[in-house]
């Protein structure tokens, strides 16, 4: 399972990548939406995107708009990771496959990611 972590906080991103690697997934990191798009467009294969919403340069909302415009990328499922209390609402707004609230519960994170394994598509 190839997971792209889009997160502006280095410490969180590193811990996430480490956790995912530890759990047997392949994980890479982009510090904002623009860099994430670059990575995806340069052909980095990705099964799931963990997306922070509040980021500098390009926010999660803008990234999702760009992703949906790009037919090659639109199919990749996105799980929103935010500290915002309205996480579920935000996820619905941008048509995300799931949501997780920060501080992230590692077991729940792994459980959500586990749902995407095999199918390549996440349940909503």
């Amino acid at each position, binding site marked *: 399972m190839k997971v792209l972590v889009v997160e502006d*906080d280095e*410490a*969180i991103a*590193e*811990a*996430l990548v*480490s*956790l995912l690697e*530890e759990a047997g997934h392949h994980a890479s990191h982009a510090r904002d939406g623009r860099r994430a798009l670059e990575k995806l467009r340069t052909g980095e294969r990705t099964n799931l995107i963990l997306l922070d919403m509040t980021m500098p340069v390009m926010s999660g909302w803008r990234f999702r708009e760009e992703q949906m415009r790009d037919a090659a990328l639109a199919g990749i499922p996105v799980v929103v990771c935010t*500290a915002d*209390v*309205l996480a*579920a*609402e935000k996820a619905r707004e941008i048509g995300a496959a799931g949501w997780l609230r*920060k*501080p*992230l*519960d*590692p*077991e729940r994170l792994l459980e959500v990611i586990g749902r995407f394994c095999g199918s390549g598509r996440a349940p909503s």
Partner: protein
Amino acid sequence: MDARLAVAIGVTFGALLMLVSVTSMSARQLIREARWVDHTKDVIEELDGVQAAITEAETGQRGFLITGDESYLEPYHRASFAMSEHLKRIDSMTGDNPIEQERARRLRQLVEERTAQLELAIRLTAAGRFEEARAFIRSGTGRTTMEQVRTLVVAMRSQERELLRVRNERSGSTARSLITTLGIGGALLFAFLILIWWLIRSDLARRNRAEATIRERETRIRRLIDANLIGVLFSNDGSVTEANDAFLSMIGIERGLFKADEHRLFGFTAPEFRELDENCEKELRETGTCRPYQKELLRADGSRVPVLFGATNVDMGGAAPIRASFVVDLSELKRVEAERNRLYEEARDAVKARDAFLSVAGHEIRTPLSALNLIVYQLARQVRVLGNEKAVDLAGRCEKQVARLIRLADELLDVSRISAARLHLDPEEMDLAQLARDVVDRFDESARRADCMLELRALTPVTGFWDRLRLDQVLSNLLTNALKFGAGEPVVVEVTAQQADASLSVVDRGIGIHDTDQRRIFERFQRAVTAETYPGMGLGLWITREIVEAHGGKIAVESRPGAGAAFRVSLPRRLGGESESSGR
């Protein structure tokens, strides 16, 4: 004058007039009747006079006849003249009585006849024809005539005496009724005079009392004015007539320099408040009183003073009412009000700043916490793989402390969200009994550490439309408290369902809560125990109550010190019929 007094005087005067009138009529009647009595007596006297004159004429004639002395004829002539005079008066006096008039005429005839008989005897005697004279006398003609005269006089006298009796009686009756009228009238007049005297006395007493009351009121008003607790102004037709020291001090004019008649009542008002003065003037004209209103007065030095102004008309019995105006200096009140507003603003800003700080701090803390949580989780897993028991224990403790830090950060964020009415719910169809089972399982280790036996009574599913994470928070908070204050005694969690509501209760047998603290513990930063004995921020029950109320539910506590506490939550199974989440 008192109306009763006026009526009494009127009635008395009327009664007096009537009495005078009745008395006057009766008196005139009495006089008339007395005159008739006198008249009757005069007639009787005249009749007696006629009889006496005839007798005297007979005596004189007899003397002459016996002696031939002519000097005896002198009484005869005097009596003849007197007879004529008596008859004339009888004629005129009986003019009102036809019977007596007829009798008088007959008497005159008989008297003339008798006089002629006496005259014949005298003439015969004077001519020396004594025998003829004696024969004439012996014939008895004279005695017969005289007898007729006497009989007639007796009849007339009898008639007049009867008249006299009747007239005397009538006169007596009139006199008696006059006396009675005078007596009754006098008594009535006396009674009315007593009444008038009593009314005048009452009226005077009433007036004295009224005057005393007015004097007392005036004294009180004067005391109020002189006390100078509030400004008092008197005005007449808009011009000031009097002002007390309190008012002068308010507008900054010295008593010695104040000439009342140079000022108008509304002349002290600052220009922008003139319209209020006009309304006051209108109100005074229409109702006699102007309700108090706030305005500013211009002081002698040009500065302003805020006041409360009210006025009322005072009827002093003159043509135009005097106006009394009351002026209260609001300077100190306004200053205190401004200070209070400033303090309120400061306090509100401080609360806002605190909530903003809590929000920012919560977010800022959560970001490193988020990373720390992930790192510690991995660390613990690594340590468990390595199998160092001491390291496993330490990593486990790290995990718990991180989880505790996360809860604290969540509570701080909840404070700012609830304060800003931004508590958000994500309701979903869920089973409260299942949630209770999960939470109780999670608290299993904590319960063991607290030496509390944790019992769950949730036999059947209790479904509803609620925010799962928030209800988890509610039960977690209640359980945390129950274990903290449960004194090692068993704690029971129970979930039951009614038609429209679900109930969740957490009952412990711990230290309990005093009556006075039971309401307070649901308030923000309030605790029933001291931080030294039981640490905490005093937010848990407040957040719990807010979450329950955001669901449209209620939370209550039953407790006695030393007898434990029962927290009971009731939740409607639907959120006001909405399927979407709502914030508060």
